[in-house]
């Protein structure tokens, strides 16, 4: 995974010098925030002033100061806190690498946005040079063993405080990222976030956070839900952002359903979008508008369940003959199923078959939902803040996402979940131990399809129109990528993956033609360096790094103290 390092003997000899250089570089990077980075004000969030850092520069300043702090801490507390080990130098190395990437991205953004490297002012060059030197210098530092801060005993109030802080930071990150209309700023901010997470991970702080918050799971979940719930109130009635947010939720809920199929049962489904599409079409047909093909308009709850059941039936129909074949065959068959779905929806236009979908025009008006007298199409004012149409849908989608997550994690952490793990581990042995392999696979397939179908029924109303060309193979592959990139079998990972994949194209419209190229590149890089995804399920990590005995020992410790049902939960984190 890591690049070949410098021999330890050399590191020992130059270590002290490298430390001083690293500290200096950090300070210089921090100072560079007070220097102008660009000649034009259109790049990033206007980084042209002397002595007046912009927000982007402020973060660089903060990160610059953390670098020397980490090095100083490694000298002051080499043994960490208590008897646990902190990854000071690990963090410093990650931060130095991250700062280098950040400055490269910043220089790139300035050049692209203003037209050429000539527009980069001396401040950015100073920062870039310092980051480069810092990167090299940290390679000479001897890093400590894997951090063990997660074993630290944390008092309850501190855990709750940590949860609150994490949630506020997440709310802010979501708010800020969505608010950026400047793509350069957006990209830089995302990279900042990534670097921040990487540093937390390498120092062991993330492990500590996970352990500390894990003890208060309910509080954590409640807080996360609350933050997500409050998000629309930060948007001041802006429909543009809320429309993106609603799409992110649809995508995330669908990806979470696919996560059951791919992440838990280990089945490769390349036509998953068809289930979302079938749900959307059913809901549209029953929406009761002039465009709807059936003149019935059941209550939305019924439509929702019906959409789910239709999708699940399709799942059973396609699954029962194919789930007996393994791996690649299933992928090909599901791929074909996705195409069959698209073509059928295009052809059910009255001339080639019954007129169900109006062919390629689709059902162009599904109307707005109206649940218990609450009109989802209208703008409501709550506590003086306007909640627009998309914000209304955001709330119902949020509830649905919470339900999907609940279903996912409870299935994962049950008799059925154990069966799925066993099937992934060794299908033959699982069968010989009495696990109903075929039944469990079918269950994964059908329940995944059901969840997608219900998500589709809501999506039909969010989008207003349902057309066959929005349910194509590319969407299936995006969903799969969200699961794989984020981390198969995890909740948090898939949420992050889905958010990133849905947000990126919205915010990076300028690279639209190159979007797929970037995306492909990202996948290749991820598969090479971190095949288990951004957030790795511990078991998945082991499956991908079969030879890594150190990892096995470490995860043994993590899985060890908890027993039985709780241990399975650890994997679903």
């Amino acid at each position, binding site marked *: 995974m890591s690049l070949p390092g410098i021999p330890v003997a050399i590191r020992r000899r130059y270590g002290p010098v490298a430390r001083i250089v690293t500290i200096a570089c950090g300070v210089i990077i921090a100072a560079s925030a007070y220097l102008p980075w660009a000649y034009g004000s259109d790049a990033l969030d206007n980084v042209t002033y002397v002595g007046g850092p912009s927000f982007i520069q402020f973060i660089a300043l903060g990160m610059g100061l953390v670098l020397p702090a980490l090095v100083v801490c490694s000298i002051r507390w080499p043994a960490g806190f208590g008897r646990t080990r902190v990854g000071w130098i690990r963090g410093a190395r990650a931060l130095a690498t991250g700062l280098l990437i950040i400055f490269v991205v910043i220089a790139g953004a300035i050049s692209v946005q203003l037209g050429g490297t000539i527009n980069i002012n001396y401040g950015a060059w100073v920062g870039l040079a310092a980051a480069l030197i810092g990167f090299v210098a940290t390679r000479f530092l001897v890093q400590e063993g894997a951090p063990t801060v997660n074993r630290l005993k944390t008092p309850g109030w501190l855990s709750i405080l940590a949860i609150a802080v994490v949630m506020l930071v997440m709310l802010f990150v979501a708010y800020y990222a969505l608010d950026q209309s400047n793509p350069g700023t957006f990209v830089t901010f995302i990279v900042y976030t990534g670097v921040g997470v990487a540093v937390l991970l390498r120092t062991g702080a993330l492990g500590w956070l996970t352990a500390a918050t894990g003890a208060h799971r309910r509080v954590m979940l409640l807080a996360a839900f609350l933050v997500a719930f409050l998000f629309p109130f930060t948007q001041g009635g802006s429909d543009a952002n809320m429309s993106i947010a609603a799409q992110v939720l649809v995508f995330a809920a669908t990806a979470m359903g696919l996560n059951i199929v791919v992440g838990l049962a280990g089945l490769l489904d390349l036509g998953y979008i068809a289930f979302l599409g079938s749900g959307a079409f059913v809901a549209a047909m029953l929406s009761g508008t002039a465009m709807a093909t059936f003149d019935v308009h059941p209550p939305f709850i019924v439509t929702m369940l019906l959409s789910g059941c239709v999708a699940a039936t399709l799942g059973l129909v396609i699954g029962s003959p194919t789930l007996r074949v393994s791996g690649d065959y299933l992928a090909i068959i599901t791929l074909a199923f996705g195409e069959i779905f698209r073509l059928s929806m295009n052809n059910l236009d009255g001339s080639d078959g019954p007129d169900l979908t109006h062919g390629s025009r689709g059902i162009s008006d599904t109307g707005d939902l109206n649940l218990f007298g609450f009109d989802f199409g209208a703008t409501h004012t709550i506590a003086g803040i306007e909640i627009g149409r998309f914000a209304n849908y955001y709330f119902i989608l949020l509830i649905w996402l919470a339900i999907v997550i*609940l*279903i996912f994690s*409870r*299935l994962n952490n*049950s*008799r*059925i*979940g*154990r*069966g799925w*793990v*066993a099937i992934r*581990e*060794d299908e*033959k*042995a*699982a*069968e*010989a*131990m*009495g*696990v*109903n*392999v075929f039944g469990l696979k079918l*269950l994964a397939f059908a*329940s995944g399809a059901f969840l997608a179908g219900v998500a589709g029924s809501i999506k039909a109303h969010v989008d207003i129109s349902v057309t066959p060309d929005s349910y194509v193979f590319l969407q299936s592959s995006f969903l799969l990528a969200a699961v794989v990139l984020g981390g198969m079998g995890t909740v948090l990972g898939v949420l992050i993956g889905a958010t990133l994949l849905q947000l990126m194209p919205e915010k990076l419209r300028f690279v639209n033609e190159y979007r797929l190229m970037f995306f492909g590149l990202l996948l290749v890089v991820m598969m090479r360096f971190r095949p288990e995804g951004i957030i790795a399920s511990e*078991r998945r990590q*082991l*499956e991908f790094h079969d030879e890594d005995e150190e990892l*096995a*020992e470490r*995860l*043994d410790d993590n*899985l*060890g*103290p*908890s*027993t*039985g*049902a709780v*241990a*399975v939960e650890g994997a679903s984190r």
Partner: protein
Amino acid sequence: MTQTATTDAGTPTELEPLLSARQVTMRFGGLVAVDKVDFDVYPGEIMGLIGPNGAGKTTFFNCLTGLYKPTSGRVVFNGALLPPKPGRVVRAGVARTFQNIRLFANMTALENVMVARYCRTSSGPLTSIVRGPKYRREERETEDRATELLDFVGLPEVAGNLARNLSYGDQRRLEIARALATDPKLLLLDEPTAGMNPQETRQAEELIFKIKDRGLAVITIEHDMRFIFNLCDRVLCLVQGRPLVLGTPDQVQSDPRVIEAYIGTGAQEADGQVGRDA
């Protein structure tokens, strides 16, 4: 159920056999791996299955556990025809271990055993999501039973360790615990002491006696003759898929045909041919 069902001569008494195989034959194309094997196992009996490598012992096991469907012949277990699917065989009460250990490597020891409770538990998807009292009771019972079985095979302290990190001997014992978790009436052990040192082998012997004391019948494939003759009530020797001798350990041990099968034709005249199988 628990008394030994064999007389001194090794012939079964009037007890009903737990499992009886009649004329079981398994062909792979032109190769006859198992050839007309007749075979009875009585409740509470330990049965040994020996034979040189390639004699068809594991293939015969696979026929008894539903992994293979015999080309001809039939297997009756507990008064009913053995179903052709491994899952249903387990349900009927036949559990097995594997020659090359096939644990779920990335699950903990406890989870490995809990998985095997699958066929004896029934919570479906809805109960799992709603988590009613029935679900919680069943989960608790599953965990208790798994813990108890880990104790039984002597692995209480590694419950939380990943199966892949266990020592070889412990992995073998965990496999037995996992098989026992399916509540079998008949346990099939495929070379349970392969790769074990003498001390571990002795522990395995004790464990198998303990399993017998629970009233289970055991069939074990083994190459370690001392192990077989210490342990088994009756021994069947297979050679090239055909049953050669069936009898008490003493009878089988002293049978010239068995020695011949293991060491080669004419043991006296061909020292150089000492079989690597023995």
